[in-house]
């Protein structure tokens, strides 16, 4: 928002969806209308009231008119309310059925629109806004032709009312082409799920679209702007999702209107994502591809930030398909590719990014991410080619240090330590950083230069590694100390590593080994037990358990551990030898 917040803002509902019960009697209807009248002053000063005759069913029964009567009564109620509150504006949207060649239906339509006329007259006289807008949502009865539908639309247009069409299933031929030119909105519902769900997803889309104009507005925040009133259940719901789940905030038919608690809406991102995805057909039919692309793309980014990569990828795909500019298509593809990459769908990621590379896009960025895919596949040679490509492109979007770091990791994985060191040094040109320094140590260690490795790891430790990296740094210092024969010091460091990350198997394994070397077998046993708890398939840790139990004189248990290790990996030589020897010992003692 560019201006001031104001003290009146209690986030009143802007839209009310009244879901009528077709079986309601006149008395119940009067009560509902009266309740709505009491609710109007609590709504936003500019609000929409939808009167939906049959919320779930897509096809309304022939001749059904109960909803129209309610709408008529509500139009009267709205007229009175607006007369008392002359700064307010109300849009009334009754759902109505258009029947084939039945001019009699125009009589109640005229009656419905009558309360808006004085507002139109005054607006004309005083050059103002009409303030009461009755804009029906028309559903076509069976056998209604496109021509008849347009005639119905013209009926409303000529009375300064803008209708829309709810179209379940197949769209009548010619209707959209002809009516689209008149600015009529369509709610297209290929699955014929019902008018309320259609309005639900539309509402979500419009809410998200509005948020683009709000500085700092969170795209996936609760809608918060609508309430659903279900006449059948008597429930007042804080949103459609709550209605679908049957979780009313309160009951509408007890006492005065109470605003439902928006906090009761629950997790909204999933609802927003699902709604947006189901909107596509309607948006295309309404010639709103441009807005749709924008919403899908921004929503994809928002979901990506939340690490909901599947939803983000789907939305990005829609953004791609609805784009008519190559730049937009490329951006959507990169977004989608990244989502697949982050969710581990590597083949999809590669396919999408390969396609992205055929568009006018930052080729270096695409190459970089394709390199990451190859890296994840452990094809380090191919990954290096991609990263090299990214490096040569001079991309503005990928820092050179990031590319060099990835290249260094590739070289480390194929044990080309001098090359790795060269790229790590480039990463360090702008200034020394923990991670490249750490990997310099890894290179040293790979080349057997333990002293130099430890110097790098200690430097990394002094620089204050991130919490998630601390355990790795300590582990490597422990490794160096162990290799240098400074086992007691190694134990001190590794105990800290275990404290920092008790879930890292390698820490337990190495600490257990150090205990073994210092003949603290019981402590070693504890370490290896924790290791096999973390990974029950770790043959070497079962074997280490065996060796320590053996040295503790617990031969039966040692044999059992060796057997376990052997079953998991029969190639470990000392397991095979010890198992044979100890089995013999046991047999001899039994004998």
């Amino acid at each position, binding site marked *: 928002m560019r*201006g001031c917040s104001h*003290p*009146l*803002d209690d986030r009143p509902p802007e839209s009310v969806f009244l879901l009528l019960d077709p079986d309601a009697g006149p008395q119940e209807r009067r009560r509902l209308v009266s309740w709505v009248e009491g609710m109007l002053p609590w709504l*936003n000063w500019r609000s929409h009231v939808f009167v939906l005759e049959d919320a779930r069913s897509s096809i309304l029964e022939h001749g059904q008119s109960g909803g129209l009567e309610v709408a008529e009564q509500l139009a009267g109620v709205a007229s009175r309310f607006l007369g008392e509150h002359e700064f307010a504006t109300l849009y009334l949207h009754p759902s109505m059925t258009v029947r084939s060649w039945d001019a009699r239906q125009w009589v109640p339509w005229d009656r419905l629109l009558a309360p808006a006329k004085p507002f139109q007259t005054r607006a004309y006289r005083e050059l103002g*806004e009409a303030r009461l807008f009755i804009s029906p949502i028309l559903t076509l009865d069976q056998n209604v032709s496109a021509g008849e539908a347009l005639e119905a639309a013209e009926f409303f247009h000529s009375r300064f009312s803008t209708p829309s069409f709810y179209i379940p299933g197949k769209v009548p031929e010619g209707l959209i082409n002809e009516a689209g030119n008149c600015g009529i909105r369509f709610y297209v519902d290929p699955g014929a799920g019902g008018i309320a769900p259609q309005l639900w997803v539309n509402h979500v889309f419009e809410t998200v679209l509005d948020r683009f104009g709000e500085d*700092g507005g969170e795209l996936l925040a609760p809608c918060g*702007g609508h309430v659903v009133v279900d006449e059948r259940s008597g429930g007042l719901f804080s949103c459609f999702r709550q209605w679908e789940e049957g979780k009313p905030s309160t009951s509408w038919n007890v006492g005065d209107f109470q605003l439902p608690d928006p906090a009761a809406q629950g997790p909204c991102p999933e609802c927003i994502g699902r709604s947006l995805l189901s909107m596509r057909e309607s948006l295309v039919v309404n010639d709103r591809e441009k807005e749709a692309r924008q919403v899908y793309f921004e929503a994809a980014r928002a979901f990506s930030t939340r690490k909901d990569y599947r939803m983000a990828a789907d939305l990005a795909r829609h953004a791609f398909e609805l784009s008519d500019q190559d730049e937009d298509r490329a951006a959507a593809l990169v977004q989608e590719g990244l989502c697949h990459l982050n969710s581990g769908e590597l083949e999809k990621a590669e396919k999408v990014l390969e396609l992205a590379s055929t568009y006018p896009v930052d080729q270096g960025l695409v190459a970089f991410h394709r390199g990451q895919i190859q890296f994840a596949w452990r094809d380090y040679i191919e990954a290096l080619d991609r990263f090299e490509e990214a490096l040569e492109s001079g991309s503005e979007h990928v820092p050179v240090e990031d590319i060099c770091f990835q290249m260094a990791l590739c070289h480390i994985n194929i044990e080309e330590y001098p090359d790795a060191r060269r790229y790590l040094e480039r990463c360090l040109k702008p200034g020394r950083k923990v991670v490249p320094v750490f990997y310099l140590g890894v290179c040293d260690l790979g080349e057997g230069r333990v002293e130099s490795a430890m110097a790098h790891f200690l430097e990394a430790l002094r620089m204050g590694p991130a919490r998630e990296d601390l355990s790795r740094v300590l582990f490597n210092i422990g490794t160096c100390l162990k290799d240098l024969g400074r086992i007691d010091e190694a134990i001190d460091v590794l105990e800290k590593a275990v404290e920092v990350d008790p879930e890292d198997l390698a820490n337990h394994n190495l600490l257990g080994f150090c205990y073994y070397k210092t003949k603290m077998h019981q402590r070693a046993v504890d370490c290896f037990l924790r290791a096999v708890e973390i990974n029950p398939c770790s043959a070497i840790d079962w074997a280490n358990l065996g060796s320590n139990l053996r040295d503790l004189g617990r031969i039966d248990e040692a044999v059992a551990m060796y057997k376990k290790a052997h079953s998991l990996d029969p190639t470990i030589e000392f397991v095979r030898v010890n198992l044979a020897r100890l089995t013999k010992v046991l047999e001899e003692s039994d004998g």
Partner: protein
Amino acid sequence: MRVLLVDFNPFMPPVTPISLGNLGAVLKALGHQVRILSLGSTSRFSPQRLLAFLKGYKPRVTGFGTYQRNIHHVRALAGMVKQVLHDSVVVLGGPQATFLPDAALSIMPEIDYVSRGEGELTIRTIVEAVEGGRGEGPIAGVTLRARDGACITGASTEPPADLDAYPSPWLTGVLDPAALEESIMLTSRGCPNDCCFCYTPAAFERRTRSQSVERVLEDITWVCRRGTGHLWFADPNFSYCERRVVGILEGILSKGLKVEMWVETRADMLTPPLISLMKEAGVRSVAMGLESASPNVYPALNKGIDPEEIGCAARAAIEAGLDVELFSQYALPGETVDDAMKTLNFVKDCGVQIKGNSNAQQMQLYFGSKLHSDFRKHGVRPLREDFPSFLSIGTQFETDWMSRAEIEQVGNVWLAESLDGGKRVVS
């Protein structure tokens, strides 16, 4: 005394209520309690909540910023104030009020006073008169309705030559930049030029008054420290005095303030050195009034500046990396459809994108402008004779050169060229 000041534009998102803030600062300095409501199209509030607010705050005086488009909503809110608070007085201020015909007051029972003079002075005289029980007599700078229904206009007021005489809405805490994404600054008033379509020459008698460089810098420093540093200068002619504008920009630089600014200026002031200084100081966008690029049209507007000069300034600013907006209008006196198209092409040829304030708008006839005072002489034909007296002709006209349909046609051509669907910010 409790005073409520309201700005309600139902057709645009709310903006910093800088003018009401200025009034609020004056009242606060006099020891009055002031609340300001800035409401717009995206503001959410229910009638019930508004009612509760009014009953709770109980303002003795309620003032409204009024212009052509919001007057219906202002009247409705005023009616609500009167209904709830019988002894509250309602004041109309703003551009619509300055030259509002007296006859309008007689058909607006919900309005007590119409502010004709400078708001800072008239709000003070009104509050003092109401407080002293003199609210029914003549009040300087104000028109009121007497008990017999006649309109009484008090003596005119003489505004101070130096705007530093008024307290700052920022420094007094009446407006809080921390609550704003963008702060509007108003550091000078009036314009020495005499454009026939503009209300400003009559309202300010072609005099220009301004705050000192020091005062402007003091406000900017505070706003930047508390807010975002996004500044939008609402001065009708920010760079009318080169020495002053250079002082402000150099002051921003020497204080090391991080700002992004939007300013409106005349093209003849926009020299290459000034453009360079603007860019360095943080001006991101400059807006200039073009109005029309057709030689058949612009001489009669009294703008006194050649479109070619505007074009040169626009290109130079764009080249320097500034965003440029050109204000233009259509349905001007003497303008045919072809002339209007020349303007559109001129804007495009300058390299200015058709969006935001560069979306043209139909000329509007407001109370106080030369065009409105003598519209027939300028070939303007109102579409009706029976305008309510509180409304000026606005856009409800055609001209001797363009029919209503042609005016709409020109509007549609501009809309088709627009990159943002015609979302203009400034009217």
